[in-house]
C-alpha cells in the first residue's frame, strides 16, 4: 500500500482545486500579469517601482474617480438591498398574485446590455427625453437622469435580481420553528422578522449585495453614458487602456490593480463575516405563507409589481423603438418593420454566433464553476479560501482588460487562440465562472454532508458520489446558474469587442456598432431579438425550477 501525503478525504477537493488553479492560472492570472505587469515598471520598463501608483493616487482627477465610484457603489448596494429584501420577503412569505410571472420578469433586466439600457433611458428621461418633456409639459420639474442619482437608480433597477433571488431562497429555507419560538417568547411578528428572520437570511443578502457592489465597480456601460463628465473608475481605466489618444498601459494597470484589490478586500471581509456566523437551518419544508390583512397584501402586491415594471421600462422602450422608423440615426415615430428586415438581412451570422457562444460558454462555466463552488463551500481550508478569491476575481476584471490580456498572451507561442471562436468562449467562461461558483455554493450550503458520507460508505468514490448524489441535488442551482451565464454571455460586449475576429461577430457587437454610428434602428431591433431569444431559456428554467421545488 503506497502512502500518499494527501489524506484521502482531501484528494477530490484538492484535485478539483488543482485543476481549477491550472485553468484560472492560465486563462486569468497569466493574462492579467501580462497586462498589469507594466504598472509595476518604470518608464524604461526595466526596474520595479511603485511610482505609477503614488503618481496616480496623487492626481485629484483619479482620486475623484475613486471617490465617485465608491460612493456610487455603496449607495447602489444599499438602495438595491433596501429595495430587494422586502420584495424577496413578500415573494417568499406573503400571498402575492402572479409570483411566477414576477420571478421570471425580475431576471429580464440582466438580458439587456447596459449600454443599450442607458441609450433607452436617455431617450426617455434625458434632458429632451419623451418622459421628461411630457412631465415638463404638465408642469412637473424633473431633475436630470445624468450624474450620481441617475447612475445609482439605473444600477438599483437593473441589479436588484442579484439580491432578490438569493434572498428569496433564504427566506424560504428558514426553519419556521425559530420564528415560532421567538413569538412564543412574546416577540411581535414585526420584531420577529427584524430580530430573528433577518439575521438568518443576512448571509444570503450579503452575498447578493457583494455582487451588486462589485458589478458597480466594474460596469462602465452605464456611467459611460450617464456620468457625463464625472470621472468614474472603470470608465477612466477603459480610456487609459484603449483610449484613442493616450493609451497608457502602466497607468491603466494601476487602476486595474486597484480595482482587483478592492474587490478582493470586500470578498475576504464577506467570507470572514459569513465564516463566523453560520446559521444552520434545518427546514425540511418551505415555511407557510403568513396570514396578513388585505391592506398589507395589496401594498405588497403593488410594491412588487411596481419594482418589476419600473425595472423593465428601458426594456419595453427598446422593444417599442425597434418597431419604429429610423432614418439613419434619427427617430421618426411611425410603425415600421424595416429595422428587423435590415437586421435579418445583415446580422444572421452574428445571431447564430451569439446563440452558439452563449450555449458553449454556459456549459463550460458550469463544468468549471460547479465543482469549484462545491469545494469552496465544503472545505474550510486555506486552499479553499484562496480558490474562492481567485474564482471570484473575474468579477473585478473589466472585460476589456481580460481581453487585452488574452490577446497579449495567446497570440503567439505555445498556445495560439487569436482569430478563432475558442478565445471568445474561454474569455466568457473565465468572466462568468463566479456566477456558477456563487450559485452552486449557495446550494451546497443546504446539502447535508452526511448524504455524501452515506454514499461513500456504500462504496462510491468521492468523485462518483459528487456526480451521482451532489450534482442531482444541486440541479436547480446549476440550471439557474447556467441560465444566468447564458443570458449575461449573450449580452456581453466589453471582451467581445476586443477579441472577436472575422466571421465571429456577435449580436452585441452589431448593436454597439449600430448605436455608435447612429444606426439606432438596427441596434434596437437586435436588442429586441436578443430579448426574445433570452426569454426562452429563462422560461424553461422557471418551469424546471417550479417542478423541482414541487417534488
Amino acid at each position, binding site marked *: 500500500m503506497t502512502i500518499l501525503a494527501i489524506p484521502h*478525504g482531501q484528494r477530490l477537493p484538492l484535485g478539483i482545486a488543482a485543476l481549477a488553479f491550472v485553468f484560472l492560472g492560465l486563462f486569468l492570472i497569466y493574462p492579467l500579469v501580462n497586462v498589469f505587469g507594466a504598472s509595476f515598471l518604470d518608464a524604461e520598463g526595466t526596474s520595479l517601482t511603485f511610482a505609477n501608483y503614488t503618481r496616480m493616487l496623487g492626481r485629484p482627477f483619479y482620486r475623484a474617480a475613486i471617490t465617485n465610484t465608491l460612493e456610487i457603489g455603496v449607495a447602489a448596494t444599499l438602495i438595491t438591498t433596501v429595495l430587494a429584501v422586502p420584495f424577496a420577503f413578500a415573494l417568499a412569505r406573503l400571498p402575492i398574485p402572479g409570483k411566477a410571472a414576477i420571478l421570471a420578469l425580475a431576471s429580464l433586466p440582466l438580458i439587456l446590455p447596459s449600454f443599450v439600457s442607458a441609450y433607452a433611458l436617455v431617450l426617455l428621461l434625458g434632458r429632451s427625453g419623451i418622459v421628461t418633456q411630457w412631465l415638463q409639459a404638465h408642469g412637473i420639474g424633473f431633475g436630470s437622469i445624468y450624474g450620481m442619482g441617475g447612475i445609482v437608480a439605473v444600477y438599483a433597477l437593473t441589479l436588484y435580481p442579484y439580491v432578490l433571488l438569493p434572498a428569496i431562497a433564504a427566506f424560504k429555507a428558514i426553519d419556521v420553528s425559530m420564528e415560532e419560538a421567538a413569538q412564543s417568547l412574546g416577540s411581535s411578528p414585526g420584531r420577529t422578522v427584524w430580530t430573528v428572520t433577518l439575521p438568518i437570511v443576512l448571509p444570503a443578502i450579503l452575498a447578493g449585495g457583494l455582487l451588486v457592489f462589485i458589478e458597480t465597480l466594474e460596469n462602465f456601460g452605464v456611467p459611460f453614458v450617464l456620468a457625463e463628465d464625472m470621472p468614474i473608475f472603470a470608465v477612466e481605466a477603459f480610456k487609459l487602456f484603449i483610449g484613442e489618444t493616450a493609451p497608457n498601459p502602466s497607468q491603466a494597470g494601476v487602476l486595474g490593480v486597484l480595482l482587483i484589490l478592492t474587490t478582493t478586500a470586500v470578498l475576504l471581509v464577506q467570507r470572514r463575516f459569513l465564516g463566523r456566523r453560520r446559521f444552520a437551518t434545518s427546514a425540511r419544508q418551505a415555511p407557510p405563507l403568513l396570514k396578513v390583512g388585505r391592506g398589507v397584501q395589496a401594498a405588497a402586491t403593488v410594491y412588487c409589481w411596481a419594482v418589476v415594471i419600473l425595472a423593465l421600462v428601458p426594456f419595453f422602450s427598446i422593444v417599442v423603438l425597434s418597431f419604429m422608423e429610423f432614418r439613419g440615426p434619427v427617430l421618426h415615430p411611425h410603425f415600421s418593420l424595416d429595422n428587423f428586415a435590415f437586421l435579418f438581412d445583415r446580422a444572421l451570422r452574428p445571431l447564430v454566433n451569439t446563440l452558439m457562444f452563449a450555449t458553449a460558454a454556459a456549459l463550460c462555466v458550469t463544468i468549471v464553476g460547479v465543482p469549484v463552488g462545491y469545494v469552496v463551500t465544503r472545505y474550510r481550508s486555506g486552499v479553499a479560501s484562496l480558490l474562492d478569491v481567485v474564482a471570484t476575481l473575474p468579477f473585478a476584471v473589466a472585460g476589456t482588460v481580460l481581453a487585452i490580456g488574452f490577446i497579449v498572451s495567446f497570440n503567439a507561442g505555445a498556445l495560439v487562440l487569436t482569430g478563432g471562436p475558442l478565445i471568445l468562449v474561454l474569455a466568457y467562461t473565465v468572466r462568468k465562472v463566479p456566477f456558477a461558483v456563487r450559485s452552486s455554493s449557495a446550494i451546497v450550503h443546504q446539502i447535508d454532508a452526511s448524504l455524501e458520507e*452515506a*454514499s*461513500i460508505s456504500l*462504496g462510491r468514490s468521492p468523485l462518483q458520489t459528487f456526480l451521482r*448524489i451532489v450534482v442531482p441535488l444541486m440541479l436547480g442551482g446549476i440550471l439557474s446558474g447556467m441560465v444566468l451565464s447564458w443570458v449575461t454571455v449573450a449580452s456581453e460586449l466589453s471582451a467581445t469587442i476586443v477579441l472577436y475576429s472575422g466571421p465571429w461577430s456577435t449580436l452585441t457587437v452589431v448593436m454597439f456598432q449600430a448605436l455608435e454610428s447612429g444606426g439606432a434602428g438596427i441596434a434596437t431591433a437586435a436588442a429586441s431579438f436578443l430579448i426574445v431569444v433570452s426569454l426562452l431559456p429563462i422560461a424553461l428554467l422557471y418551469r424546471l425550477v417550479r417542478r423541482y421545488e414541487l417534488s
Partner: protein
Amino acid sequence: MSGIVIAGASRTFGTVRAVDGVDLTVEQGEFFTLLGPSGCGKTTLLRMIAGFCELDAGEIRFGERRIDRLPAHVRDIGMVFQNYAVFPTLSVAGNVAYGLKARNVAAAEIATRVEEALAMVQLAGYGGRLPHELSGGQLQRVAIARALVIRPHVLLFDEPLSNLDARLRVSMRAEIRALQKSLGITAIYVTHDQEEAMSVSDRIALMNHGRLEQVGVPVDIYRKPATRFAAEFMGTTNLVQARALGLAAPVWVSLRPEALRFAEEAPAGWPHLPGVVVGIEMLGPISRLDVRIGNGAILKMVLLDAPGQIVREGQIVTLAYDSSRLTVVS
C-alpha cells in the same frame, strides 16, 4: 473474516485531543457500543473507522487487513447516520440498491436482495416510494436496509435513534439488535444513552475526554464501574467515601440506590446506617428517597411501592446496605 482491532488511535483538533490513544478489539459478530457524553470522542472514533476522519497516530485493522489508510469507499462498511441521510433524489429501492450498484452486482440479484432487505426492515412494498413520503422511523429503516444489504464487514451506527420519539426508539433498538444477530455482522454503535447501550450491546466501551474509561459487558460496567465517571454515567448511584459507611479504607465507593433498604426489610447481616429522610419523589411503581446519614452525606434509595407504606420527610430511619454491591471506584 475476523474482528476489528484499533491500536493507539489518536486525533487532535486544534488543541483538543478528540481521540487519545484508544486501543480496542471488537470480536467478529459482536454488537459493540461506544458510549459517552457528547464531545467524548465516540463519534470521532466511529468516523475514523468509517474513513471520514484521519488518524494522527495509531492504526485500525479489519482482521489482518490494515484499513486506516484506505479511502472510505473501499473499506466495506455500512453506516447508519443520525439524520438518516437517505438520498432524496432516489426512491426507497434506489437507495437500498445504491451500494449494490457500486459493487457491480447483477441487476437480477440486486432486485432480489433489495426486496429481501426491505422485508427485513418491514418495508416490503415501499420500494417505489420517494423519501419525502416516509416518516422518520421509516426513513431510518431505509437507511438500515441500505447499510445491511451490502453485507459489509462492519455496520456502523452513529446515534441512529436520537431523532426518533421515545416509544419508537425502544422498539427500533430491539429490531436493530435482532437484525444484527440474525445476520452475524459485526456492529459498532455510538450513543450517549446508557439505557440504549445496555439494551443492545454485547460489550460497551465507555469513553470520556477521548479516552476509554472502561470496556466490558453491560452488566459488569453497571455493577462494577471502575471509575467515579463510569459509576455516575451508567445510572443513578451514591458516590461516597468509604469512611461515611463506617469503613476504614480512604477510598470512594459506589453504591447503587437499589442496594439500600430499610433495616427492617433487609436480609440479616447487612450493615446498618442511621439517617433522616430529607426528600421523597413518588413515581408510581417506585419512590425515590434522599436520606441524610450520620456525616451529612445524602444517600439516594429506591422503594418499590407497597400497600400501607408511609414515609414522611423528617422521619428518622435506619438503612441497611448490601456490602457485596459496594464497588471501589478510582
